[in-house]
């Protein structure tokens, strides 16, 4: 990336909810970022109507559904040095991929993605660290450990296979959800959000995606360590609402 001139930065939105753009735009670091970066095509806040010149960084929110979106994405890739997929829809397919009647693509299904900011929406820390790295021209790093590493209820005391009786919590937990026989995707999900939902009484639904590249392997191992009645198991798949790869597949 260039070191002296201002970074040329664009933001593009596809099928999503604008939540990721909002999270980036109003993150505390963004004001400094705006001073150092030159905002170009960013329909949410600027009046440019197309990507005219070569860009240093383009952030992409949302999953790709329409043919013209694919064409725009390919064009943007050819004009951009680094592509950043932002949020669960862009990185994993997101809730949009739960729609049965349309084909939903992750950004990486269509073009090469340089960085992925996971989460629905990406946490303040993930966004803040990433923007700060861009500002000082450093290689950004992503959280590598799973969510359990930052969970307020660690360490869990579990016997395997761990029995699961509930998919949802009906009261504030006092210990690990799995210990309480409630399904929580923390063990297979990437950290970086500070276990925000768990702190507020909801088990992890996996919006940060798998913590490991070999996600099917990790997830199958995880489920083989659980003990649940068959009727419950068929519902496990629904828990992966942020990941396209699990759509229509049985575990």
């Amino acid at each position, binding site marked *: 990336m260039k070191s002296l001139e201002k970074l040329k930065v664009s933001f593009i939105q596809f099928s999503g909810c*604008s939540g990721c753009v909002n999270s980036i735009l109003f993150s505390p670091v963004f004001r400094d970022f705006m001073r150092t970066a030159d905002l170009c095509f960013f329909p949410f806040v*600027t*009046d440019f109507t197309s990507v005219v010149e070569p860009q240093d960084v383009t952030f992409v929110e949302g999953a790709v559904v*329409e043919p013209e979106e694919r064409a725009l994405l390919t064009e943007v890739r050819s004009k951009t040095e680094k592509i950043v997929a932002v949020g669960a829809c862009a990185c994993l397919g997101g809730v949009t991929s739960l729609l049965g009647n349309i084909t939903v693509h992750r950004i990486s299904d269509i073009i090469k993605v340089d960085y992925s900011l996971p989460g629905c929406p990406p946490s303040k820390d993930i966004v803040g660290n990433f923007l700060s790295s861009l500002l000082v021209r450093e290689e950004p790093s992503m959280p590598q450990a799973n969510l359990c590493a930052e969970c307020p209820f660690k360490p869990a005391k579990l016997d395997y296979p761990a029995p699961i009786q509930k998919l949802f919590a009906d009261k504030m937990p006092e210990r690990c959800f799995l210990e309480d026989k409630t399904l929580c995707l923390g063990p297979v999900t990437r950290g970086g959000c500070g276990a925000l*939902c768990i702190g507020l009484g909801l088990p992890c639904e996996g919006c940060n995606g798998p913590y490991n590249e070999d996600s099917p392997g990790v997830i199958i191992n995880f489920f083989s360590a659980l003990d649940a009645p068959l009727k419950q198991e068929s519902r496990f798949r*629904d828990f992966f*609402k942020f990941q396209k790869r699990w759509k229509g597949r049985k575990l």
Partner: protein
Amino acid sequence: MKVKRTWLMTRVDGYSEIRAYSDGNRLLRVEFAAPRFRDFARILVGRRIEEIPRIVARLCGVCSLTHEVAACKALENALGVEPPETAKAVRLLMLMGEILRSHAIHFLVMNLPDLMSLVNPLKRMDLKGISEFRPKILRNGLEFIRCGERILEVTGGRAVQPVRPVVGGVTKPLTRRECDVLLSELKSSVNTAEWASELANSLVAEVEEKETFNFKEKFHYVSSLDLEGGQLFYGGDIMALDEECKFTERILPSDFYNRAVEVGWVGSETPNLPAPGKRGNYLLMTGPEARALLATRVKSTILLEKKAEISNTLLLTSIRLREAIFCLLKSIELLGRDTIAGSEVRTPWEPSEGLGTSVVEAPRGTLLHRYKINGEGLIDSAEIITPTSMKTPGINLVLCHILSACSKKALSESETLERIKMAVRMFDPCISCLTHASRIG
């Protein structure tokens, strides 16, 4: 020959466009459209009750909390569950935060640059321009947005897709300490909210070509109000005002759709409601202007406005910002009450068959959710009617007035287009809500 062209709509949330039809020389008709329609209600069918608030929040990143609360209320209505008073107060506080945040974003990103460009036509503005040339305004504007964000962060963990509301109440009580910290922060922010409102009013007063943004069209207005509790925003029944702004009827949320068809509010230009005709007989408006009008017309304990007559899109800004101040003051009042930090926050429930409807006031107007639950506790049918979908036909009619005002003044095509875009932004449409909401089953 008629030529159709489209331009990308900028500074709105999500993808939308302005379509213009011309005879080759001049523009004949313009319309605002969000063509990427997606059937979000389809996702909900067959899913479990507990999942619904989490999924519908993803319908829109700007109004995520409103959708969560509307879904919780509709499902509670179907199950016959009444959440504890503390849970209702916490949800209302969260709604105040979301409306405040949404209005503040609209002010800084969408409206303010337009007003500045109208006052000083030689210097076109957007957020980038404000950050370069008016850093103080940027700083205050971001601080204004922070007020709403702080409410959502303290109550829901984050400003976008906050978590805490669940079917039956909220997950966790707020502590007195959390409330007190937030209370003192909000008290020190009242000045910032007043600054925004004063700045907008003074800019509107300076705009020379105000009459370009006049519209003669009379609308019907709808807004929800809980008459018993005297509560605005948390729902209740839907109140309708006619084209003379007289109160006409009180509609139960469950009857709203049928009534909309009977009165003729529903038209084919509203994407998520089936069409009885090309366009409804009357056009509907909802949102801050409807709430302000309702507060003056219905005897209510809440008075937002002494008098509000809406015939110019520029005035919508003032109404929206006065409402933002109201939301901030309401939050301060809620945080001072003992109920807000109560310990009973969740009513237990068992899945059962039922049909439930709810309305909540979203930043942009009345939002309706309706669900049918089957015997297994799964969703059989879902229906979501969003405020932006109700008012899109009305917005398009106003655009026609603005187009003819621009042609009378012999403005160039690009000047006209710019004013059309400004007028759309004044109404603050939410594209995510518009394209994702639907009815199914």
